């Protein structure tokens, strides 16, 4: 087994363990930290799949931004310690999730992927950031711009929603803002 494969299985396994931790831990902050870990490890998987830029993006956005956002949210909503984090029906959810997993695995394993893979004739190659950037600004220029618009709208929307209810639209309610 070559080194790359070993690394993949190790990293992927670790990522899954962390993900499982996210959904079963009884401590909300652990949950958030484990999520950062899991997503960062996924970034490593990207690296192993020769997608450098994506790996970078993944770690930057999830490891940096998203985690901060989540921690802030947790902090602001102040869940009490020892609060019950799962529904009473969580075993049912587990059964559903397992069935879903079974269906997905069934799909993955019964599909014949040989036709879809190029085979050894075209060995996997590293995608350079320059090429990706070029494609992003030429072929994908329009979706890219739309994505920027989506982000802008989300930003404004988040602002508007998160504002204090007491303050009218003009923002005269001093002190009501937290």
């Amino acid at each position, binding site marked *: 087994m070559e080194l790359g494969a070993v690394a993949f299985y190790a990293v992927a396994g670790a990522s899954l363990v962390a993900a499982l931790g996210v959904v079963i831990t009884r401590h909300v902050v652990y949950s958030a930290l484990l999520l950062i870990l899991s997503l960062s490890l996924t970034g490593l998987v990207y690296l192993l799949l020769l997608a450098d830029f994506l790996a970078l993006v993944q770690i930057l956005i999830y490891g940096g931004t998203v985690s901060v956002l989540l921690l802030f949210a947790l902090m602001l909503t102040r869940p009490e310690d020892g609060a019950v984090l799962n529904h009473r029906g969580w075993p049912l959810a587990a059964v559903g999730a397992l069935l879903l997993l079974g*269906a997905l695995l069934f799909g993955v394993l019964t599909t014949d992927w040989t036709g879809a893979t190029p085979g050894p004739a075209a060995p996997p190659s590293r995608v350079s950031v320059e090429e990706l950037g070029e494609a992003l600004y030429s072929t994908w220029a329009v979706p890219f711009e739309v994505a920027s618009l989506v982000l802008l709208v989300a930003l404004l929307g988040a602002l508007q929603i998160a504002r204090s209810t007491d303050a009218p639209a003009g923002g005269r309610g001093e002190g009501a803002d937290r």
Partner: protein
Amino acid sequence: MDIAWLAPVLPAAAFFFNVLIARQLGRFKHGVAAAAAIGSIVGAFAVFLVVFLDAQAHLGGPAHAGGIKLAAPSLQEEAELPRRLLFDHIPWFSVGRWDFYTTLSVDWVSIMMLGVVGFLASLIQIYSIGYMRGDNRFWWFFTVMSLFCAAMLGLVLAYDFLLMYMCWELVGLCSFLLIGFWYQERDNAEAAKKAFITTRLGDVGFFIGLAILFLQTNTFRMDEIFEAIDAGRIDPTLVTVAGILVFMGAIGKSGQFPLHVWLPDAMAGPTPVSALVHSATMVAAGVYLIGRAYPLFVASPVTMAVIATIGTITAIFAATIALTQRDIKKVLAYSTVSQLGYMVMALGLGAYTAGLFHLFTHAFFKALLFLGAGSVIHSMEPVLHGTGKSPNDVFWMGGLRRRMPITFLTFVVGSLSLAGIFPLSGFWSKDEILVGALDAGAWVPFAVGLVTAFLTAFYMFRAIYLAFFGAERWRLAVAGSGPVTVAHAAGGGVIALEGPDRDTTARHGAATATVDTQDVPAHLEAGDHGGQGADHHAAPHESPWVMTVPLLIISVPAAIAGWLNIPGVFTAFGDAIYYGEVHHEGLNLAVAAAGLLAGVLGIAVATIMYWKPLLSPVAVGASFPRLYRLLYNKYYFDEMYQWVIDHVVLGISGLAAVFDRKVINEGVVDRPAMLTSRLGYWLRFLQTGRTYNYAFAFVVGILVAGVVLAGFRPDFLQASLW
């Protein structure tokens, strides 16, 4: 020839102009609409003139030297000229895989009708300016008139059944609008509805007949259909069935027995409308249809027999009703029904030229009579206004000949013509029909024709004597003298009941019903000097020139139109319009004498009954009380239909209503609605409002979809989804 299509298009354009533009013009709309309507119909008449002159050179037609022609081709050339010019393949519309083209035909029959319609409609519309003056829907009257004329002219030119049917229904629609023109009065609205529904009964037959023909031949073009019939490509039984069904349309439109009931009621419309409906347009359409689709009918002896029988029954049946009617327009209406029966009978007997010739002459003198009656009514209306007496009632007229001489004269001309008095036009066409009946060996129709001629002369002169001669009975009405409601002057003697009218006699008794006419001047004096009821003192007077001039103009063709086909002398009409071979009836002197005699006899009897009181109408009526009542009540046809409607139609409707309430409403509408609402009530508890429940349902849904997509498909899914 090429501009023939303009004839219907001009009035149609006037209609659209009036509807879209003229109505916006505020107080000017009346004048503008009338101008557009009259201008367009006069234009259509001008189109007729051009086409008519042009047709001399282009159509095979009058072959004899007597023909009226300006650019006469030689006899040799004329034999080779076509009978008709077709304007083919005018694209119309497409439905599915069918492309419909329409066809117009210019031939002598359609040219003749173009002329009749154009001429009469022009004059009638001019006359209407006077008659309709002051009506607050003056503009609408002319607008509908335009559409009416457009539809009729289109019908005349149509040479495919589809276009013809469309125009046919448009004519029906317009007559509905015009008959119900004064729809504010319930009776008028009812009459319009009756006309529309009754003719619709016939039209259903017409439509089914057309559907049969179309299914057999895949075309609506008349020439192709007739060719298919000639070639025997259609089952003869089907030809008979289709023929009778198509004839049903004519029964409805031309007021033939037993669908005649709408025609007299159609008098509810303004009189110019009656004139147009009864002469050149609506009712002519039915006879014209028979003439147009003649090969279809000739192909089946059964159909011809049916047509002849219906025509014969109608002719005598309507004439007998006309004997007792009091409303001057109803007399004329039944006269029209009777005369239409005459034409239909002639066509059914194979006397094609005679039938259409009578249609031609009748159009003129009947239009004249109606306009004359309109003139009388127009002048009676202000006189009887407020007395509750109908201005149409001849029993309340009398002595009008001195008051309205022009109307009187033209009315007499029309009546003489209708009565078939030599040498007026009615004589020639009626004679032709009688000769045709004789030639066909049909003795019963011949005899019926003679009797009808006698009756026609009688009832026309009865109306004339009652309206224009005798005492001025309208003074009685104005002065409100006594309860005489069904009285009329017999000579100068007494005012008496004409017949055993049970209602009146029962109400007033014999004593009050007989009033000495010596009273009349007394009442008059009292009225004049006593000043009572000052509103009612206007005397009937002659109508304005805009009404009398058209009367005078129409009286000319009403008198002489028959000269277009004098056997052996001048036969332009018969040379142009014939079926199969040119067929000239010889002048059968015996028949002519018999016909004339019948007419003269009718006039004579009317004279001794209503002018010189040699024979009291009261006595005559009283000797046949049942018969009189039967005729006066029009053989109780309306009552019979009413009974059928009440008991059969309403019975079935009642069943349908119960079915609708119980099965449709409760079973099909309410029950599922209840079920849905109940189901919704229980299903709404699925909406827990908790997102994780939804997420779980989501996952289950994905699983099911995945299982199905993975190939596990129960049988029932395979059948319905894949």
